[in-house]
């Protein structure tokens, strides 16, 4: 038992020189209020959280702020570029994030239009190049395209984050074969980012061999977000255990579990 526990403690993943024990990265958006955000993140066990960068509301300068509830000293903030459609907007946004937070690990996402918000890969390449040149360590949201994923890795992105289904759709992982191909070729961490709807989806991502799972709406839009956060924590751990354990081979026919010898006659 002690050996198992100790092996679990050593089972970390590392991105840009930072190591994490939790393989669940959660967003901080779409919660009822900041109290619920804090409670759900605590329950998820996440050590890294994504955050957005937006204008301060000048007419309400004393409004509570995210970092009053989600302590940046306790959680690694991963600022995103949600809402940015050009490389210039992404770079300006993340330079502000770097100044506000003092770190250079960021999540790049350049999105196409609704209703799919599919990753805009030409825009993503352009922004990734500009950000890497400016000293950022870029975890990149991308299409489930092995060629695009490889190119982003060659450019110097520190983590590849293909979608499992459209953002906020909760459709689950629609592309296990493509994710497997991307995972197999990658030398940097691969996270499935977007599409997870419930705990089994997160477990599937981990069973495929993802280094971690990134999700937001699946927790924030659950009827009981804090309970779903616990479910996601357990699912990611279960999926990781299963991946490490190695699943049994699939077979078309039955193979009895009980011995055939010694039956009474």
């Amino acid at each position, binding site marked *: 038992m002690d050996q198992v526990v100790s092996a679990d403690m050593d089972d970390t993943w590392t991105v840009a020189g930072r190591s994490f024990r939790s393989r669940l990265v959660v967003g901080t958006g779409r919660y009822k209020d900041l109290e619920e955000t804090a409670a759900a993140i605590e329950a998820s066990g996440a050590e890294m959280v994504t955050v957005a960068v937006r204008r*301060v509301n*000048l007419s309400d*300068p004393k409004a509570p*702020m995210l970092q009053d509830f989600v302590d940046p000293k306790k959680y690694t903030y991963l600022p995103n570029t949600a809402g940015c459609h050009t490389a210039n907007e992404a770079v300006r946004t993340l330079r*502000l994030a770097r100044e506000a937070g003092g770190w250079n690990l960021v999540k790049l996402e350049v999105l196409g239009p609704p209703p799919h918000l599919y990753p805009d890969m030409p825009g993503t390449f352009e922004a990734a190049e500009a950000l890497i040149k400016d000293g950022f360590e870029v975890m990149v949201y991308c299409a489930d395209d092995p060629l695009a994923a490889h190119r982003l890795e060659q450019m110097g992105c520190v983590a590849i984050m293909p979608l499992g289904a459209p953002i906020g759709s909760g459709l689950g992982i629609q592309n296990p074969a493509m994710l497997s191909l991307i995972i197999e070729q990658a030398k940097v961490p691969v996270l499935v980012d977007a599409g997870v709807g419930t705990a089994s989806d997160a477990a599937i991502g981990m069973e495929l061999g993802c280094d971690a799972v990134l999700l937001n709406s699946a927790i924030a839009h659950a009827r009981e977000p804090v309970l779903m956060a616990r479910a996601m924590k357990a699912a990611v751990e279960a999926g990781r255990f299963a991946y490490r354990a190695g699943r049994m081979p699939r077979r078309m026919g039955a193979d009895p579990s009980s011995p055939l010898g010694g039956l009474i006659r």
Partner: protein
Amino acid sequence: MNDAGMGMITVNGEARPLDGPMTVAGLLAAIGLDGRKVAVERNEAIVPRSEYAATRLEPGDSLEIVHFIGGG
């Protein structure tokens, strides 16, 4: 008030009179913001926190004052 002190600046897209000499630190205080929790861009260039007190605003300046909010 001299001419150099007259004019308008833009803060987060809103026009705002510049009624006299003012620094970034002074502007944040006037709005009521804690400088440790925001980041400031002036004319598309970052103003480092250490320079808030020394950075004088000029008429026509465009400022973005941002903070972290919940996001996925």
